[in-house]
């Protein structure tokens, strides 16, 4: 518990900033929904002028901005992008920070196992990502209720947010694994944004080009793509399977490699 509580305190500031930024951006963009909905036919006309591939790539081809969920799905993709970056930064930095700041010798000299260190740090990441999603979901629900023009599917709403949660967990887990090997602080942001933006554009590329369609398995943004979820009202089982395997494997390997690692700073 000692390390867990310490990590909560240490990462609190970052959590507050990221949560505020993302929740407020989301609310801000949602508040524009009534305007969009009133003029949705004109937008629909405008959209037809864009190349079809581009709309597909951005997941806008199936969306009808008159519907609140469709509108939300469109902006949610960008919220997801930054949410994933936050989760990955958290994952990449939480273990490696001790080595980068050379505090790991202090920690390893305490009566705690390496497994104990990893477990408590993972719990802290899990705690903040869960809390983030809870706050984001509740605020989003309140916003929806305040501005909706007609009823929407609660199931789809929940699925979209579950998708976001799973996306963040995936990036955080992969980040944990990477941080066993890359411990320099200056590598944290390039890795996190590189991975998140990279997979984000793979998602777009796989939607645009048939030749690149199979790339979709490489990107979590495809697994929980908001416009797909709104369209089909489900997260496909094969994608769910990949997500769980990636998370489980990353976490297990983090334990395995960290236990074998020679740590000298």
């Amino acid at each position, binding site marked *: 518990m000692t390390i867990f509580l310490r990590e909560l305190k240490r990462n609190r500031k970052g959590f507050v900033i990221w949560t505020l930024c993302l929740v407020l951006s989301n609310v801000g963009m949602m508040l524009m929904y009534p305007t969009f909905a009133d003029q949705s036919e004109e937008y629909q006309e405008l959209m037809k002028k864009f190349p079809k591939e581009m709309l597909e790539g951005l997941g806008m081809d199936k969306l009808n901005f008159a519907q609140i969920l469709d509108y939300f799905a469109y902006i949610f993709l960008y919220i997801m992008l930054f949410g994933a970056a936050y989760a990955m930064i958290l994952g990449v930095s939480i273990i490696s920070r001790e080595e980068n700041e050379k505090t790991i010798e*202090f920690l*390893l000299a305490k*009566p705690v196992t390496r497994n104990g260190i990893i477990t408590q740090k993972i719990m802290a990441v899990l705690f903040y990502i869960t809390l983030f999603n809870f706050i984001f979901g509740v605020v989003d629900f309140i916003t929806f209720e305040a501005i909706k023009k007609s009823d929407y599917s609660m199931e789809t709403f929940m699925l979209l947010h579950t998708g976001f949660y799973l996306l963040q967990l995936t990036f955080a887990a992969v980040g944990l694994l990477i941080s066993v090997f890359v411990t320099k602080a200056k590598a944290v942001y390039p890795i996190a944004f590189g991975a998140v933006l990279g997979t984000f554009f793979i998602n777009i590329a796989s939607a645009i080009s048939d030749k690149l369609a199979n790339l979709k398995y490489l990107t979590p943004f495809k697994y929980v793509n908001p416009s797909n979820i709104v369209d089909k009202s489900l997260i496909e089982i094969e994608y769910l399977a990949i997500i769980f395997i990636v998370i489980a494997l990353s976490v297990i390997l983090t334990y395995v490699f960290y236990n074998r690692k020679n740590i000298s700073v």
Partner: protein
Amino acid sequence: MNAIETKNLTKYYGKSRGIIDVNLEVKEGDVFGFIGPNGAGKSTTIRTLLGFIFPDSGKASIFGMDCLKEQAKIKMNVGYLPSEVSYYDDMTVKELLLYSAKFYKKDCSNRINELSEILELDLNKKIDSLSYGNKKKVAVIQSLLHEPKLLILDEPTGGLDPLMQNRFFEILKEENRKGATIFFSSHILSEVQKMCNRVAIVKDGKILKVETIDKLRGEKHRKVMVELKNKDDILAVPGMRNPERNGNNLQFLYSGDINDLLKKLALMEIDNLWLEEPSLEEIFMHYYESKITNALTEFCDR
């Protein structure tokens, strides 16, 4: 039971040498010096004992517990003072020490106050704002606050001023009196001599010798430099080692009776005289000179 025991402990970093076949036995209650030049393998040995790194072969145990398997248990009774101190710079001294104490699940606040008073450390300062010496004090308190049965000190006096060093040694003596075993790694012979009852000398990753400090003391070495007035004068006293002659200057290690030397010198005209504590390297050269220097010394002795 031994506080520390290693058997043929070997560690390479890739191809470069860390330590080779280190065998140590540190008895409970000992103050054990671990001395050698930089890069000799002192820190590698300590890091292996503490489970930061894993040996390629050999075994190590602390209080009979295997260093590979029972690290968490071992650490309940071990205090570690690193040579280079880095702490969480968002914390104050007090926060760090209380954080440290939490791991041992006991109330250490009295001990923290007591030690910080002795070392004159302000508990309310941010770690970030501390000087190197003050950070070292934090490390000292941090290693002692849970009253460990074994203290592992890696070049502990760096950064402490002489006054604080003395207080630190007093604290160590008190801990030892209460039964703590102390493993004292250093490259400074004099501080090891002051503290320890047994000493292991390491060089190039190997233990060269384990000696009692009394024996080292018995053979007190002096580095002697004499500037002779007359360059044809010859100085020969039993106990001279590795003499080097350069014109009027004569330099050698001396382990004999200092009175004999002075009497001889009194018979000569000299311009200048230096008597110094030899550096560790020079002691090594004397103790463990290779065959070539052995032969040279014998030649010179004749």
